[in-house]
């Protein structure tokens, strides 16, 4: 079996969730690396969009900002934020990849505050485009380390909507129908959501980890998918492309 680190594992696992010919709104870092890797492996026609306006660039290097010039290098179009978000709102964007300081069992994300909003213990940046992407794109994916301080019973603040309180709460709140959290990719497992309760459930566990270990590193009770499999490990080819073509300077995978 190939040797790889946690970040490489997460990026490879994430890249496999993107099918050819899909559209994805991504941020910088691991999401962008996963999308680039997917393009160079199984999804050559994956269409990458950046919230500031870049559409389908030929990314020469990893962008530092979702608005920097790499995000529209040899792009098919250099547009703007409304263009991107409205393309999402119209239903043309399949996936988005997000992060956050906290996530709960319904996939709600917090990137605003820890503690009381009016008197925050820690202030974070806020939504940025995350709430927008998560409201409009069909499927939300999250890449984050498995950690009980991140996977919490209740996020301090719902910055970005997952399934809210579960069940049909998301659609009842007014968000577009049939959208929502899809996968959470951590260093230990890939999780999805129960179709009825919309609670997070473990679908595959990475080699070397057990369900119990995943549960120990999660602040809420995890469900299990009807069949929990072992995540196929990264292949030599995936790792090689990731290391030599996607992130040769190890900006992301070197962390």
């Amino acid at each position, binding site marked *: 079996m190939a040797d790889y680190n946690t970040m490489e594992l997460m990026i490879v696992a994430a890249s496999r969730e993107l099918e050819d010919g*899909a559209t994805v709104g991504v941020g910088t870092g691991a999401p962008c690396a996963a999308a680039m890797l997917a393009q160079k492996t199984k999804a050559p026609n994956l269409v990458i969009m950046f919230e500031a306006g870049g559409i389908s660039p030929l990314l020469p290097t990893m962008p530092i900002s979702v608005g920097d010039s790499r995000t529209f290098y040899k792009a*098919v179009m250099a547009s703007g934020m409304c263009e991107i978000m409205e393309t999402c709102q119209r239903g043309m964007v399949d996936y988005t990849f997000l992060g956050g300081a906290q996530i709960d069992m319904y996939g709600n994300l917090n990137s605003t505050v820890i503690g009381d909003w009016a008197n925050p213990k820690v202030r974070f940046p806020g939504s940025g485009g995350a709430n927008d992407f998560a409201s409009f794109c069909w499927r939300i994916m999250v890449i984050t380390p498995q950690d009980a301080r991140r996977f919490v019973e209740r996020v301090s603040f719902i910055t970005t909507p997952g399934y809210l309180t579960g069940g049909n709460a998301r659609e009842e709140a007014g968000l*577009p129908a049939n959208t929502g959290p899809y996968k959470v990719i951590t260093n230990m497992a890939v999780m999805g959501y129960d179709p009825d309760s919309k609670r997070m459930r473990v679908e595959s566990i990475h080699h070397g980890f057990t369900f119990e270990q995943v549960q120990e590193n999660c602040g809420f009770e995890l469900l299990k998918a009807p069949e929990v499999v072992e995540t196929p490990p990264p292949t030599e080819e995936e790792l090689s492309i990731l290391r030599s073509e996607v992130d040769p300077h190890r900006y992301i995978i070197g962390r």
Partner: protein
Amino acid sequence: MFDVIAQGDGPLFMDPDPDKAREFFRTKKRAMANKLMTVREAVEKFVHDGEYLAIGGFGANRIPTAICHEIVRQRKKNLIFAGHTSTHDFQILAAGEVFDRCDIAYIIGLEARGLSPNARRYMESGKVTVCEWTNYAMALRLKAAAMGVSFVPGRNIMGTDTFKHSAVKVVQCPFTGKKMALYPALWPDVAAIHVHEADVFGNCRIRGISIADLELARAAKHLIITCERLVHNEEIRSDPTQTVIPYFLVDAVCEVPFGSYPGNMPYEYYSDEEHLKKWLQVETDPEEFRKFLDEQIYGTKDFNEYLELNGGIERINQLRAQEHLIELD
């Protein structure tokens, strides 16, 4: 529910539900595929009887004339037409009697050139069910659809008979208490737009004014592009700032040089005012007009034949000179 203060009694031909539109767009192909086809193929494939059609440009400026002709030639029927910023395009489609419902902002007329006798007869015949709007109202309906929401507000139309015969609803703004006219989103089933340059995937460039075409391209469920010339995708990618329609909105790309004739194509050729005058004149006699249509549209196999009938490249060259303000002797 919103408290609706007033509403027009015009028919709403299309459902403004954004979730239904999303379900359609969810299935629309996103991959970059070669979409090159003939005008005939594009119309066969994407213009269906009974569906909602919108045409880009401004009546006799940057219009997809070949598509309008082909819709008539293929004898499409019972279409619903977006009659905004339309002049010669409307005249062609009315000649073919291809639509029986029409959202009206501007129809029948050809601006300073006068009214189309035939289009007027058709609209006065009782064969067409109509709803009244304004040019900006129709642009706003397309904008709402392009944004992916069910309506956007505007401060026009209120208090008029245009409003009474529209499908606008007036509400009070919850922030200011002011009255706002709400325009329902319009997702046309199919639209055709003529552009300067496109690649085979459908990435498009337009020079000059865009009219309401950027909104239309995003609102339409299916989009047919005709272009003056194809360019390579590398050319598109060399300057992505110039792209105004990204390929994933587009279903068909047809290369149709001089494709806005007899209309004006900015930076390319001016409108053929003599030919447009001929239409208006011959229309005064319905019998003569049938013959004219047989000759110009039904009897031609494609747009190139129509161009040849009307002077071909020689005429185009005169119109090129006119466009560029060059006096030929």
